[in-house]
């Protein structure tokens, strides 16, 4: 299990967002090349790795997305501050006071925040829109800013930390999924899986499931798609009469439904039963918001049964998320069981 946490640490520390996934893609490629039979990159930037199975006519499509939520430089003001756009869904109220890294040289900056002492009462209660925020890199004029230009990507600066059975870091959505896929592929470097595994690390999920739209094309005999994700966990935030979405420590969460998919009932029941048979603790995701790559994949071509299994992450889409090691281990166990048994599933 130590290896998979290593992948999670390395992958979550890397910076990659929609349209700028090369850092993680190259790293993943080196991690899996020796275990698989074929590796290609498509025009969206998806990394596809195929490991032939004992039964060549049956394929399991295994997916996770490489991009994290981030920002893009919009303009550099005359006074040296930087305006920016979000890439992916971000709630602006978490941003003031955040440390970020800009451009390919990862120039350090901070998202400016007015000191409490200087705020009027009205301002204290108001959440600033992203349009009103700015990043300070220490420059006092546009000319002083080096190595940052409009269109450059901006990332959270958070470094992975393991403590007391928990992992703290950024981008667990969806480096957890990427780490899981890499772990699973490397398990089959010597022995062949039952069904052929087509693993696609997709690009640009956070800006509209773009990579996923092309992930299933041209693949024959897909039995099912297992989509590995990181998902919302609000077990600290909500009242007891409301749903926490998922709970930390209760195991990987299986999606019943979200805005982009209603999970095929047969596949849902099969997965829940498989978890029970292997004594793998798991939970059902108890909210139906958001969307994942499965939303696009299940409607590709003539249709593909697709299921999303996710590790609960507190404070997702923010600089610091928390996941439980126990959940992560069970997440990989459940994914592994599905990969092992995929060739037995009938839609």
């Amino acid at each position, binding site marked *: 299990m130590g290896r998979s946490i290593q992948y999670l640490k390395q992958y979550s520390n890397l910076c990659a967002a929609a349209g700028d996934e090369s850092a993680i893609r190259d790293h993943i490629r080196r991690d899996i090349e020796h275990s698989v039979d074929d590796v290609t990159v498509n025009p969206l930037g998806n990394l596809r790795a195929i490991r032939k199975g004992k039964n060549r006519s049956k394929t399991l499509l295994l997916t996770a997305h490489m991009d994290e939520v981030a920002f893009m430089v919009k303009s550099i003001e005359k006074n040296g501050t930087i305006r920016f756009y979000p890439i992916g869904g971000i709630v602006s109220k978490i941003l003031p006071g955040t440390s970020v890294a800009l451009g390919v040289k990862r120039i350090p900056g901070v998202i400016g925040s007015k000191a409490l002492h200087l705020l009027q009462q009205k301002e204290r209660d108001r959440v600033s829109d992203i349009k009103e925020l700015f990043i300070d890199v220490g420059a006092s004029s546009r000319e002083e800013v080096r190595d940052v230009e409009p269109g450059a990507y901006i990332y959270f600066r958070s470094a992975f930390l393991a403590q007391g059975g928990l992992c703290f870091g950024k981008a667990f959505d969806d480096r957890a999924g990427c780490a899981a896929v890499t772990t699973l592929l490397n398990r089959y470097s010597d022995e062949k899986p039952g069904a052929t595994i087509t693993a696609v690390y997709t690009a640009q999920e956070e800006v509209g499931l773009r990579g996923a739209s092309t992930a299933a094309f041209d693949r024959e005999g897909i039995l099912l798609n297992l989509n590995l994700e990181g998902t919302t966990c609000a077990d600290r935030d909500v009242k007891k009469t409301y749903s926490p979405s998922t709970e930390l420590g209760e195991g990987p969460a299986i999606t019943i*439904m979200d805005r982009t998919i209603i999970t095929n009932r047969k596949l849902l029941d099969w997965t829940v039963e498989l978890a029970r048979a292997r004594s793998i603790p798991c939970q059902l995701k108890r909210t139906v918001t958001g969307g994942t790559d499965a939303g696009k994949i299940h409607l590709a071509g003539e249709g593909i049964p697709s299921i999303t299994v996710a590790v609960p992450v507190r404070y997702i889409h923010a600089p610091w998320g928390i996941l439980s090691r126990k959940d992560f281990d069970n997440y990989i166990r459940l994914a592994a069981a599905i990969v092992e048994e995929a060739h037995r599933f009938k839609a």
Partner: protein
Amino acid sequence: MEYGMNFENKEFVFTAFGVSGREETVRGEIESFVRPLVDEVFHDTTGSLISRKKGKGSQRIMISAHMDTIGFVITHIDEKGFLRFSEVGGQVEAYLPGRRVVFENGHIGVIGVEKLEKGKSPLKERMFIDIGAQSMGEACSQVMVGDMCTVYAPFVVTDTIVTGGWMDNRIGCFVLLEVIENLKNSKNELYFVFSAQEEVGLRGATTTAYTLKPHIGLAVDVTPSSDLPEGDRIGSSGLGKGTAVKFMDRSVIVPKKLTQHLASLAEKRGIPYQHDVIRQGGTDAHAMQLSRSGALAGGISIPTRYIHSSGEMCALNDVQATIDLVHAVCQDAMTV
């Protein structure tokens, strides 16, 4: 007025459960009914039921009526046995408080609302479903997280109207069943599709159209009428004025050659019809039009009042006219 329609032998289409993504029950009933009447029946992974009637003509025609209704999915069961839910498809908030719901397994519940601040309207997030359970344990013995339910409003047929909670779109399915039942021969290769998951994004029709590769696609669905006192001008049709030939909705603009063909077909057969332009709403026609390299797509709809309420209402003569026009399409060469 005498109608050719038979509601009795097709009652199942108005009573069998089938919320988006969980259409197995109604699909099974429809399959049993159509199997002896068509040449082939099968369903696909997204859940649509496809029934095929062979024909020698050059066109492959897909006629799609969605069999899913909107509903609710249970997301959470609290300690006292109350159920939190989310909508499946577009529910109208104003219609919800006090509504009765029925689950797939037959249990009944009522939608309740938390206490409201004065002057504020209820939001879906502050609603819950009450099935009369006294505790979480008791609730869990009846329903589970992930179970779906829908409005409980059995249908009623009078001399002039048919009304109930599931007219959208079981009345469309009814039209297809009537056509299939009475169709002697078809000019072209016909696919009567009872599509799944329309209410959550035309999902069934998307994969089904990809599989069937139709030249022509027609959606048979309800369409909002605009004939209420000081009513919202959402569309151009009215109850009792005939079947609604679709010109445009927010998901499809029907090509002129198709609207002209359907209009002249209706005129030739003396079928009352009206031009249907709506500024909100979409149908399976969109999925069929944009599949692969494209198809000619349009709609033949039943004007309906109070869509997504428990009292959706259609006029019987509009239903008859819709059946007649779809029937005419099946017997026409449809070289458009």
